[in-house]
């Protein structure tokens, strides 16, 4: 992983997310660091994503320009790898299983309840950047369906009516494993 991460970490004194313009400005430093290294593009993109949490399109454009590559080529790389995201990601990634077992046992209802509670669609992140809602296919816990995975923790037999409680528990860290920051 990149070394001098601290030198341009986001604002140290508060949690204010960077604006996209600020991200673009910081990109220039990232580009300088990786531009002349062979195969430096993907590490540069990873660095940017780890700093900003995601890769907004202007950032991708700025990195492409910095590497003297076309925007379409670099966006092709970003959209090829699933570990890159062009949309903000929340502190907690919620993935609702829609595999067959979970689906027939109410996974769909759980998803609807989450959408309603969080006010976002699949793939979106809440404005406070706490939660990103996504769907998945089978986490290997079909016996406990329906399941929801939040970061690295599997939550079993989730009930649509008790979604609020689950989210509060996750946010307040009552569930120790769910608290782990996303890598």
């Amino acid at each position: 992983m990149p070394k001098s991460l601290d030198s341009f970490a986001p604002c140290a004194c508060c949690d204010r997310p960077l604006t996209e313009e600020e991200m673009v400005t910081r990109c220039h430093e990232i580009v300088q660091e990786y531009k002349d290294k062979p195969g430096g593009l993907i590490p540069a993109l990873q660095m940017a994503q780890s700093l900003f949490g995601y890769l907004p399109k202007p950032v991708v454009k700025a990195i492409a320009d910095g590497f003297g590559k076309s925007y379409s080529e670099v966006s092709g790389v970003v959209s090829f790898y699933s570990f890159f995201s062009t949309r903000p990601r929340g502190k907690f990634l919620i993935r609702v299983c829609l595999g067959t077992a979970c689906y027939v046992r109410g996974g769909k209802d759980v998803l609807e309840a989450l959408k309603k509670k969080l006010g976002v669609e699949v793939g979106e992140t809440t404005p406070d950047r706490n939660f990103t809602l996504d769907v998945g296919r089978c986490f290997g816990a079909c016996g406990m369906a329906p399941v929801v995975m939040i970061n690295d923790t599997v939550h079993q037999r989730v009930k649509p009516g008790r979604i609020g409680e689950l989210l509060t528990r996750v946010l307040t860290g009552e569930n120790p494993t769910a608290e782990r920051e996303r890598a």
Partner: protein
Amino acid sequence: MINLTINGKPLTVPEGTTILEAARSAGIAIPTLCYLEGRPPLGACRVCLVEVEGARTLMASCSTPVAENMIVRTHSARARAARRRVVELLLSEHDGNCPTCDRNRTCELRALADSLGIERLPFEGSKARRRVDSSTPALVRDNAKCIKCRRCVAVCSEVQSVGALFPQNRGFDTLIGPAFTQDLEGVACVQCGQCAAVCPVGAIVEKSHVEAVWKALETPGQVVVIQTAPAIRASLGEEFGLPPGSRVTGKMTAALRRLGFHGVFDTNFTADLTILEEGTELLGRLRRTLVDGAKGLLPMFTSCSPGWINFAEYYYPQFLPNISTCKSPQQMFGAIAKTYWASKIGKSPQQITVVSVMPCTAKKFEAQRPEMTASGVPDVDFVLTTRELARMIRESGVDFLSLPEEEMDVPLGISSGAADIFANTGGVMEAALRTVYEIVTGRELPFEKLHVTPIVGLAGIKEASLSIRNVKPEWSFLEGVELKIAVSHGLGNTRRLLEHLKNNGSPYHFIEIMTCPGGCIGGGGQPRFTNDEVRTRRIAAIYAEDEGKPIRKSHENPAVQQIYREYLGKPNSETAHRLLHTHYHPKQP
């Protein structure tokens, strides 16, 4: 040398040759889709699979080099079956309706299905969701017809060094297109249409003006005139089955009359006019540099290729002041037709519709630039590609091949041989030198048949120098000057040249740039398929056209002399500037 056997035929070919190349050299046709002549093979489509004795699997012939004693069967039952399966799979995901498709007659996928004897589709695949992108003035992209062969990617990024199109996403979701699958207008595409020229199917085509032109022709009271670019006469015949390099100037003229155009004119006329305007501009820049010590005026770049103008505006704004301010011949023609000629026939600019036939899709973009409105209305109203004109001729029922040879109308149809060679790389430079050298020295350009041999041909970047001696008194500042020129075609070559100039300064006085490989004869709107052999033949036809003209130099064109006498005054006069010149601006998508 390597010895091998293909379909029982012994062959000897140089080491490093691919099976495909070896087979083609022996007259054996292996079908291909992703393969693009002159580019490294991708090996992606698997349509070129052949059987190699001793190999466990079938091999992609486009990317497998020959080996000593190799025994290849290109059309064995196994190879045919595999190929058929590949194409069946492509067709099962393909969402198109051949009878209404632009590529109906020329589609490679359709031809492949035919040659493989595919009669039904064993599986129904899920189709990509159709999104038609008509965001740009030049092109229409339909992702549902795309077979992901990536030829457009290779040509856009490797040949043109633009890189507007790349695979986005992965797996079934892969789409070939601009960044994050947005529309083309969102990225710095120069509209050259080379992607449309190489696409095997109907996934990228020019934005058609055919209907609009029919409509104009049927509008009562409207005077509809047509201008044809020099490159059309050397390629249009291909659309009617003639071999590349057939000259069809006379038949084309006859066809245009039968379509109902009220004036059949020639972009060549304004190509000659361009030479006088641009040559005078060059001499002015030389004078200001050499006499007044002005800086930054040289080199001067040619300005007739609108894809190049887009390229400079997007990627090399520092060179914009060096591009000749002359409008392209297409735009000059529109401006002249709607002013000078309009007043001759007693019409207003509004009563005249100017249609162009161009080998180029970027000309569609150029025609709608807001600054190209010298007479108060757009200089040029509609732009047809060579392919669109052929379609109109077919639609009209005219039997092209049996048409007589006719002459273009006067005065805007009169031109010199120098105008013809605007169609190919090196030609604009040669045409300019024929005039400039003679103005300065009073003597003819000292080359056999007036051809500046070092800049003829398909080399990517060409250069030459011309020593100027015994000048006329008024040009004494040019005495002894070694005029250095360069020529580049294809934007990849152009980028290499510009990077060199950027880093090392320019030894050149005058540089010709053409967007497309080979120049306009290889334009994005030309009959498909254009490879180097086709380019070479079209260029030969253009030079023959030039040599067959009684007048070979732009300044000797009597109609051009007349327009200066009657209307424009001198080259670079105030009227000339108002009608025939323009300015460039840096831009972002």
